[in-house]
């Protein structure tokens, strides 16, 4: 391999390592869990804002309830379920993957995979400029002259 190729491979590896390092699983603090759960809950009195983002009083009491439940040692699922019990699935800002609404997660992936396959097949097909339409050698020569003579 050439030196430049080594450098590129090393750089990509370095980025990969950095990403893997920051994505490594680590225990969350209580505050991080509260943030994460309340970012998934919809504030009932707002227009589509999450409980974490909303400054409203309702959102504040919901955050306080989440914080208390986290301190009591409840799991994320239990805490979410408590809100779903009162407000229905409406309170969750993203539908669970394993449900009828899993479709909304599947659709973007399907669109990208299908689209990429289509694009790939079109990109791979040989560039079929019909032979007859191609320039003759004389035309190409003339074209090169023109391009060379054109002031930049």
């Amino acid at each position: 391999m050439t030196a430049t190729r080594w450098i590129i491979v090393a750089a990509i590896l370095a980025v990969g390592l950095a990403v893997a390092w920051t994505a490594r699983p680590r225990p969350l603090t209580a505050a991080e869990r509260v943030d994460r759960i309340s970012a998934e809950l919809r504030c009932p009195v707002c227009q589509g804002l999450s409980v974490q983002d909303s400054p409203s009083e309702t959102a504040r009491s919901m955050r306080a309830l989440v914080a208390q439940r986290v301190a009591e040692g409840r799991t994320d699922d239990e805490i979410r379920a408590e809100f779903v019990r009162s407000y229905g699935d409406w309170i969750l800002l993203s539908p669970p993957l394993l449900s009828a609404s899993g479709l909304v997660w599947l659709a973007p992936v399907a669109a990208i995979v299908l689209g990429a396959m289509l694009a790939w097949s079109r990109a791979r097909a040989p560039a079929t400029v019909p032979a007859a339409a191609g320039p003759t050698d004389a035309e190409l020569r003339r074209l090169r002259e023109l391009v060379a003579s054109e002031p930049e």
Partner: protein
Amino acid sequence: MNRIARYAAVVLVLGLAVVLTLAFARDPHDIKTGTVGKPAPGFALPSLTDGTTVSLDQYQGKIVVLNFWASWCIPCKEENPALTDVWERYRGTDVVLIGVVFQDSADAARDYTARLGNTWASALDGDGRMALSYGVFGPPETYFIGADGIIAGRHIGPIDEQTLMTGIETLRAKSATR
């Protein structure tokens, strides 16, 4: 290839048109709560007027009308005469009306009840937990709880006497047949 593209385009256009037309059938303000049809969450809250505790348990076997309100809520004032009338009519029967103060200071709430002359019990939901357990969006909101302790219905926004009566009488008829 072209054939697929054609079908896909037609399906997408038709789908969008159907979805958007259906969207008109829906009222964006009609939000269902999760608690209707389920057992009413229990509560024990301080009374607004005296030091006693208002709890759901003490009204077991009765029909409970829970009304969430606040002194800063303008539509609450609008529905107050209807509540007063219904309260007077069912006073001393198997129907109780309980107010729940929503996101309001005790002083302002006491002022409000005194000014309007409300005599039914109101409970202070200081940290808002009780409203959260019922799935309340904002005052005024009214819940009908049957003698069996199940939430039978909910009304969002100012309620009128007719709606209150219907809610109560349906529940009374139901408990009478049992």
